[in-house]
């Protein structure tokens, strides 16, 4: 039978170490809503999402109360809208109107984000894909809760460099369109290589076309729990260090698995996956950078950071995989800058640069995330940063992403405030040398060779 020590340990994780379930994300397929009439399409989308998600928030709150574990966000992901809207949308404004419908239904059912304003263009773009991409600045500036993502490359197909070039411009435009709010639109826009179909985390969540009609995906988090566990084994060997991370990740993921099963049963929607990520928040003690420091670094970004992060990421996966029947999504350690107080401190101390972050993305679970850069950064330079990140994902057969915010009107040394879970960030310097001629080339980078790996 459960004893007092175990109960106290669990409750301390929740009350003192920020253990929480970061999100229950309901995936909804909109493929059966497709219609060539825009008004009918909007109506069908609204009704399908509303019917599927009307009890989501209430159910999440009930589970949270019964088990005494916070469930921070309830969210929705939908089929990439470029596929859904292709038959009905003739211009960018038509697509933006669909974003308006998503925003409205998100508000009406009470979720804080809805993801899937997306296009999958890793090899080529259809005219609908291109229209949707061109509508992103308008869509994100005219809505509040809609998140957008674009898959630009994959290990199987290579990198669509035409789309990479376009996304550099779109990110700049989105920043311009939302410059009154410190270019906040870019915080809701992410580009991927090897985007997963079942990611519950925003801004990159969408409901892949290979998924069932509806699905429940759950994202857990607990950097504070791992940090706390590691404090108790300070100075011990790597073996002890790794075992501790693994055991802690197991416990954290089991909570996610329980919540996912409960939500699935109560909503009558199949359980999809648990995403066992360490997702930091700006709250003190909820930081991945702090774990790296506990492992033995003065600041995240110091020599040894990539190795420490590789170890952490791998042990989190090893512990989590055994705790859940189905693991998916991004699963690993996230290293956003603005959402992690330890990362912010590292940047301000001069320990962490964009280049070191890029190296870290080779071994972490996502990529360059929530990084504020000067507003006058050229679109081609942003495309260059994206291309580098996509190449890392393509060659290493992993998901990589870029969520970067060129803050219009601000430069290096200034700070930008996004608020809430998105946090604040010091603006980081970008390498000023040009890559315009490289980005200006047409076509795509071919898929890498899958043999002769040395």
């Amino acid at each position: 039978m459960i004893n007092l020590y175990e109960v106290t340990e669990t409750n301390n994780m929740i009350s003192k170490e920020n253990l929480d379930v970061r999100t229950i994300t309901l995936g909804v397929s909109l493929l059966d809503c497709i219609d060539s009439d825009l008004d009918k399409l909007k109506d069908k989308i609204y009704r399908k999402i509303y019917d599927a998600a009307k009890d989501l928030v209430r159910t999440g709150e009930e589970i949270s109360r019964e088990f005494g574990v916070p469930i921070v966000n309830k969210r929705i992901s939908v089929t990439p809208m470029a596929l859904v809207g292709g038959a009905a949308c003739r211009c960018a404004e038509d697509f933006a109107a669909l974003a308006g419908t998503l925003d409205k239904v998100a508000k009406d059912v009470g979720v804080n984000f809805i993801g899937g304003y997306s296009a999958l263009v890793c090899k080529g773009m259809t005219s609908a894909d291109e229209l949707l991409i061109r509508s992103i600045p308008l869509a994100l500036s005219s809505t509040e809760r809609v998140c957008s993502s674009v898959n630009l490359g994959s290990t199987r197909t290579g990198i669509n460099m035409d789309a990479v070039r376009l996304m550099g411009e779109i990110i700049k435009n989105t920043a311009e369109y939302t410059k009154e709010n410190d270019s906040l639109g870019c915080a809701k826009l992410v580009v991927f290589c090897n985007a997963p179909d079942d990611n519950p985390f925003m801004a990159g969540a969408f409901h892949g076309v290979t998924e069932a009609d509806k699905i429940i995906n759950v994202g857990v988090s607990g950097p504070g729990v791992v940090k706390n566990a590691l404090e108790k084994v300070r100075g011990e060997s790597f073996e002890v260090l790794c075992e501790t991370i693994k055991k802690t990740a197991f416990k954290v993921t089991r909570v996610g698995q329980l919540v996912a099963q409960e939500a699935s049963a109560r909503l009558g929607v199949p359980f999809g996956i648990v995403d066992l990520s360490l997702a930091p928040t700006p709250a003190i003690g909820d930081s991945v950078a702090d774990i790296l420091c506990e492992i033995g670094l003065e600041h995240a970004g110091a020599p040894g950071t990539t190795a420490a992060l590789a170890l952490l990421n791998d042990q989190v996966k090893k512990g989590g995989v055994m705790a859940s029947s189905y693991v998916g999504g991004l699963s690993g350690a996230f290293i956003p800058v603005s959402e992690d107080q330890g990362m912010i401190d590292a940047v301000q101390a001069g320990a962490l640069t964009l280049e070191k972050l890029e190296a870290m993305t080779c071994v972490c679970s996502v990529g360059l995330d929530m990084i504020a850069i000067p507003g006058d950064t050229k679109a081609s330079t942003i495309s260059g940063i994206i291309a580098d990140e996509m190449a890392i994902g393509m060659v290493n057969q992993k998901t990589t992403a870029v969520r970067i915010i060129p803050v219009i009107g601000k430069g290096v040394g200034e700070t930008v405030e996004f608020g809430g879970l998105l946090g604040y960030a010091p603006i980081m310097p970008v390498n000023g040398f040009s890559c315009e001629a490289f980005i200006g080339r047409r076509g795509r980078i071919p898929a890498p060779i899958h043999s002769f790996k040395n």
Partner: protein
Amino acid sequence: MKRTIITVVGKDTVGIIAKVCTFLAENGINILDISQTIVQGYFNMMMIVDTSGMKKTHGDMSEEMEALGEEIGVVIKCQKEEIFDKMHRI
């Protein structure tokens, strides 16, 4: 059997167990196990209870226990057993 774990943490005072147990008895909740310690003047108790006979919803019970805790000056939490079971048992 529907098992819930009740934890009571706070400054030790006269009658904590009496008040909690009275609430449980009035609501048809059966106590299966109690363990309790006092660490540096702080009262720390865990109860495993069976709520099969309870008329109220888990949410209502939780809220009323919280309110009772505030009255006595301790923190009372009611959590379904599964969260601890899942975390600490393979």
